């Protein structure tokens, strides 16, 4: 028996375009026998599973089995998985003919770059994209065994050509011997800078919220672009309103929109998933704020051939139809006045969706909350 352990040593979340590293250790756990393994090979693939009631996939958009590299061999990484393969890298051979003495163990490192155009990991209602490193190994005269290490991929937009973010060429020394000291920005660094640039705070935006009867509140969102894991901070000012608002809620939602040609039914609406919600009774509040965390585990907004994911803040304002009762000032000096809150409020609900942009974050941070197993073991 050979125990195969595949592990992602650093993290389980990567950016598309980064190189993933997977250590595969083969240990002969048998006491006496030397085991001979025929080959072992590793590959990254992204499995896309779709809800059949909602999505039709145009034939040309699907990778057929022959398109997947390495499919001619017995090593089929997506074997036994649902859905279609959205992406697959060339299989890399870890070794051929490996003899392991009893107790001996050998470690191989598999490195592969995740294509920049890869779709992000996503678990939606209709569509799911999931990534795995699949290690296949075979003992002589035994069936191939597959071992899958799941990982998560985040996509940062605008990284198709990272050279544009590098220092301009004229600053680069053209003496080839200076290359040792020249520091090339890695994709991760560039991506972090890009993210920083697009999510840094820009001027706050104000929204006057009104209904047919008048002004309800003024909402201020301090920025519109966020990274996952950030808090969405906004202020709500009711002091300028003319309509009393009894309650409001802000729900962070994603909208999963299937592209038109892939929809099963034309009338099909998008699928909405809610995350954190802030809810507050605000009848006698003048100013308050919301702080809605974007879960680090959620997928940032993205667009692929078959779907689009959009983020938004869904607001609900419960406004009173009539102003709160007031008590007249006392008519005489000996009269005391008592006021009591109304026992019933006639209210109406108003909703509003505010689109926001949500981007990826540093994959290290995302790893810290990811509960994906970084070590997977099987016996061959």
């Amino acid at each position, binding site marked *: 028996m050979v125990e195969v352990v595949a592990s992602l040593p650093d993290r389980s979340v990567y950016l598309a375009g980064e190189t993933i590293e997977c250590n595969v250790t083969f240990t002969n756990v048998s006491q006496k026998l030397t085991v001979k393994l025929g080959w072992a090979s590793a590959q990254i693939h992204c499995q896309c599973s779709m809800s059949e009631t909602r999505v039709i996939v145009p034939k040309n958009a699907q990778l057929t089995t022959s398109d997947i590299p390495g499919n001619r061999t017995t090593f089929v990484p997506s074997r036994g998985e649902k859905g279609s393969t959205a992406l697959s890298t060339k299989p890399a051979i870890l070794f051929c003919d490996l003899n392991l003495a009893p107790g001996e163990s050998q470690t*191989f490192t598999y*490195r592969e770059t995740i294509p920049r155009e890869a779709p992000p990991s996503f678990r939606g209602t209709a569509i799911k994209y999931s990534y795995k490193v699949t290690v296949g190994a075979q003992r002589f005269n035994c069936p191939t065994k597959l071992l899958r290490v799941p990982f998560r991929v985040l996509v940062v937009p605008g990284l198709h050509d990272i050279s544009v973010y590098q220092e301009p060429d004229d600053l680069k020394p*053209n003496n080839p011997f200076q290359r040792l000291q020249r520091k090339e920005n890695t994709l991760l660094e560039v991506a972090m800078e890009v993210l920083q640039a697009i999510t840094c705070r820009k001027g*706050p935006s104000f929204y006057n919220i009104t209904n047919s009867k008048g002004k309800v509140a003024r909402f201020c969102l301090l920025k519109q672009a966020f990274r996952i894991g950030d808090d969405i901070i906004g202020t709500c000012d009711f002091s300028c309103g003319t309509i009393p608002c009894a309650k409001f809620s802000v729900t962070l939602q994603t909208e999963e929109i299937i592209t038109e040609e892939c929809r099963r039914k034309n009338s099909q609406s998008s699928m909405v998933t809610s995350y954190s919600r802030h809810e507050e009774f605000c009848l006698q509040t003048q*100013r308050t704020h919301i702080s809605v965390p974007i879960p680090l585990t959620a997928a940032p907004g993205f667009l692929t051939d078959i779907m689009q994911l959009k983020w938004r803040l869904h607001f*609900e304002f419960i406004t009173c139809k009539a102003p709160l009762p007031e008590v007249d000032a006392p008519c005489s000096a000996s009269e005391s006045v*008592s006021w009591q*809150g109304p026992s019933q*409020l006639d209210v109406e609900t108003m909703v509003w969706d505010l689109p926001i942009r949500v981007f990826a974050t540093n994959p290290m941070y995302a790893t810290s*909350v990811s509960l994906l197993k970084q070590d997977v073991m099987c016996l061959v």
Partner: protein
Amino acid sequence: MYFPVGWAKQLNAAQPTGDARPLVHICSNQDRLLFAVLTHSSISIWYCKPAVQIVCFRRSDNSVVEFGMNVCAKWKPDSSMIAIVTSKGYILFYQVEVELSKKNASLYIQKEERSFGGKQDSIELNNSDCIPALKLSQVAYSQVPGGVTSLVCLREELMVATRRGLLQRIHWDGIVNSDMTIELSSIPFSADLQHSRASMLDDRGIYVSRQDYSPLLGGFAVVLSNGRAAFITANTLKFEPSNIVGVWAQEVTEATTAAINHKYTLMAFGCQNAEGIVYHLDELTGALLVSHRLVVSSKEFPDAQTICGAVSELKWTPDGTALAMVWRKGGFSLWSVFGALLVHSMGVESGGSISDDLNTQLLRIQSLEWGCEGYHLWLLTDRPDNPSPSPPGKPSADPHPALHQLNFVKSALALNPCAGNHEHLFLQGEDKLYLNPEEGMPHLHKSSALPDSLAAAAAFIGNKQWQIVPLPHTYLAHNWPIRFAAVNAAGHCVAIAGKTGLAHYALYSRKWKLFGNETQERDMIVTGGLIWWKDFVCTACYNLLDQRDEIRFYPRDSKLDNTFAHIVRVPSQIMLINTFRDLLIVLCADCHIMIYSILRVNVQPNPTVQVSKIQEVAIGNFIPHPANVVALTLTSIRTDTGPASAPSDIPDAESIVVNVAGRLLLFQRDRSGPQLKSPKEAKDRPLPFCSPVMVASAVESMWLCNHRNGRKQHLTEALWLCCGAAGVKVWLPLYPKEEQQNKKRGFMSKRIMIPFHVDIYPLALLFEAGIMLGASSESLSYNASNDEIWPYLQLERTSHVYLHHILRQLLKRHLGVHALEIARTCTDLPYFLHVLELLLHEVLEEEATSKEPIPDPLLPRVVAFVEEFDFLQTVAHCARKSEVALWQYLFSIVGTPKDLFEECLLEGKLETAASYLIILQNLEQPIVARQHATLLLDAALEHRHWDLARDLVRFLGAIDPSEAECPHNVVKNRLASAPAMYPTGFPSAPPVSPQGNDGTFVRPNAARSRSLSNAETSSKEKSKLIRTDSMENKLRLRRSSSGHKDEVSADHFFIDVILNRHARKLLGVYRIRDLACFAANLEDYQLVGWLRKEQVRAARVEDFVAALKRLHEDFLWPMPVLTLGALQRISSTTSLSCQTARLVDQMEDLNGDGVCKGPGMGRPLGLTRTSTMESSLSTSDVQLRPPSSFEDVSHTTTEVSDTSSFMEGDSADSSSISDSNCLSELEQLSHELANRGPHQSEVELRYLFQIVLEAGCLEWALLIALVLRDAMAIVRTVNTASLTHTPIDMVGRMREGLSYLELWANTEWYLICSVIQPLILRFLCSFGYKPFMQAIAGQVKQLEKIVESNPPSRMQLTSSGTPSPRQRTVSMSSDASALEEEADCPERQLSMERDVTPLADDLAEQGEDDTDGSAAVDNLVRESSSYECAIS
């Protein structure tokens, strides 16, 4: 602990009754659900959540005139009445009753006619509890002669302090209980209740101005009108006037306010001088002892006393773990129970334009009150008369004073100090939980902490993200506020309990589990805490249905339902609950501790537990009240007294640790009894516990490591305590030396208590990683809302490395052996060197700046300690981060920087040596610094530390020549005004070292600002900075005046000498690649110019073969491929092993350099196989080299495949190669050219070729062309030789060199047999040069021709004399190395002479370029000129 977050929510405090006069007081009822807010004439009652006004009552104008304005209020404990004190000495009693006539007796029921059906995710209209419809009516009043200063509620009566020095008791119906009136002047006051003599107040005019009452303490904390403070108590709770005694609070003379904390038996008094003093009530003597003081230090905020004024209010949080303090002039602060400052408003940066003064003014808090469970702080703020300029577009400041609600997040430890919560940074907010993401460090809890997992931990500590778990609204709607929260040891599961019921959440599924049956939820109240035990939620609760106390275990994986729960009945209410391994320990309200054992039973379908009581311990004698017990745990640690248990791997629960109001009591198992003799029996019947010992006092929280790590025993077996203002204490075990242990078996470890201060408030400890984690509220300014009274506060994580504190304290106590032992277990920490630096720095700073002589200085001991580790680097870094003024003291102990510098050089620690250079420069004469810099430069060049060398060149260039001449007074000056006298700087240099802190050359100011010292105030810093600038200016002036051209050039000359010497050295051993790197990395080094000068000196090549080999080796350039003929002569096995050997050889070369020389090394590796076998030298164990580019996968594969292609191909046997240079052969060669070295090497070689060609070093040009196997380049070289003024001896050497090479290529093959195996392949490959040599034979001829038909005119140009070619050959042959070969040369020349091909023919044949020779030369000229542009 409590941390404010976000902005304060502003409520609409405008009174619906039209009263706009200022808000004066806020006061909550006992369960903090209702808040009474007073203005001068009205009372309004607010509900706590939602914060909404229920009722507002405005007194008639007549009433205000008659009774006076409202001052303050008090609720009756049952919330049925409110008593209001008026300014004219009346107490008005108002009845608060629920108006039953209203529908449901509740208010604000929202009603909506919805046309559409119920929508998912939609906001629920009435999801919260009904807001009671209250009404207010005045029922009575009572006049108090002299007026009321304060009142407290004493069960069914009010205790009213009057201005006439009386304490009156008034019933809630307004009738004065005059029998019980206490006269202040008749109370005997003393220092304690035992021995001291009591005395009466002599001044009859004194009255009680403030008071606070605690039934648990049985007395009142009072502030007298003369500023003294005291505790008034009686022996019964009836407070009969005859029984009353007073105890002075010593040291207080200007008290303003008082607050009692009954849980910790503390009394806090606020003073006029903006400080607070907290007293602890000593149970034995009844005296008030100062526990700690609440002082905003000048480090936090200077001059707090004048800006803030007197303390106006003190309020403990509902759970007593934090104290809010506000000042009369403005400002707010929050302190932990034992005095650690958590947050203060003066320190938070106000957003935008608001200045500090205004900010504190804005935060002038009139009155404050904590909300339910401390999640909110209600603040009545009083805006200044001239409000801050409000932003345009906003109506100018509110006419109303503001009612604010500040949100808080608190540590789960505050109320539920169970084991799991200790290991995680876990905070609970009103509607979310904040958890530290832990997945980055899962291995830390394993016993074998791997270094890389620690690095991961370090990365994780840098991560500031929280994992936020929103609480389920469905649960919150009925059960707000959350009281208890617990996280399991792995950090994957959390559980919460609110008003009723409980809920739990799994992070991996991101799902909450709530009771399916809501009645079950409502029928239980979690009273004593919540804890995870394995996959069970264990809770101490009260069963409302059956009216009894229970412990319940709910399995995590099944539905949350009582049918799956295991329920244990307990006789009385449980106060606290905790686990230790498989033991459950609970504290009951009857002061009994019960210990249960838990056993998991796997029953299908749901697992359950078996719980059995094993022991009961009565601790009633040791604790005043069960409510005073803050924390309770079982532990395996013991004191060093008494015999130990038999040593075992998993020690039992040895002790119970109880935190009683901050005093830590340790109940240890009694092993002195007869049980010891029969261990079997002891197992069945647990040992009793001894009476307790007090381990520490003023303990806020404690941490115990629940897992063992044999390697880091000290850190995991210690007891860690957070003691508020007293910092952190660790009760550290000291293990005896092994020899001693052997002598005396079972000798228990001694323990030592080590206190130290930390900058953060610790909330969790990573035991093995040496780090504590905490949280703080950091302010963020958002300009969007600059009319907020408070900046946005964000909850941030903080961390602190604590190891150096422990080491220092141990060293201080002469326990260096133990310090060493601990440090040795921690060397794997990524920041271990940083710890040493901190240790050295802190001690240095303290001792060097001490004004008095230190009798027993610690620094020598610390230095000796650091010597055990990386001494040189630590000292250098520490010195660089310390002030220059401290250096003399430092180096008087560690040794002179000169010696250290030399030591660094010897050990090859060049970067560290560079650090010492800076130090040397400041302490020694510039000439010395220069000498050392020169030494270092040599070493740096030798070790190819180009960056360092470049910096050193700049450094040497920047040394002021005038300083070098008159050094003495300068040195003195330097020592006197340290930072200003840093070197002249590096004038034109860009930021010198890019790698930040590790950088060797940092501009002085930058270094200073990075200095660890924070003792200085900013003003001091400023003046220093200014001085630095001026000094620098002066220096610059001097430089410019004295900077004579000659001197500067002399200086440069001096540097150039060093550089040229090194360049010559490199070239002398043919390390031209290093030379190129050297030239490229040292700014302004003119390689071409230098080479031109050295054309016939250093740049000449005597041994072509050696030079060629060196080129191949340095550029990782494969030797030409061997031919089939060669292959046939050796057996395949040998060849394989040869290849292996060569690879190994090459790898060794690579590794030996230490520098990543291979151009491909830095690239992503496609596939690397590493072996775990020890025998890495066996042939099967091939270490694959990383491919450098796509084409050349790796050496082995390339060579093997090429060999095989030869075999298949047209068997080009070496013998069959004709001497004629036929076209087909050239073609084959060009194919072969595809088999090249790494792309980067090729770029480098071609670049170098241009350089040497331009410099006229044609020998090298020839060699490089040869290596490149580029016939075109050879043609160019030869052309250059023929067309330009090339010294004839150079041409001669070229010709000869080629001959040698050919000879080598032809002959060395036969030497194989005598050469050891690893070398075989190298020769084998070099043999492949033969075909190429033959291909360029034409060029050789050409060279020969040049030599022979040497035109005299050219000769004149090259040298003064006109020696004949023959003569030159002779002079050359006198060279020893060439001598022996001299004889062979003519023969070979002859052999080659057979075929003299003109240059143009060659070109045409190769088909590479269809231009003729002159065009090629033109090209060459163009290229070289364009090249010049490029490098200039």
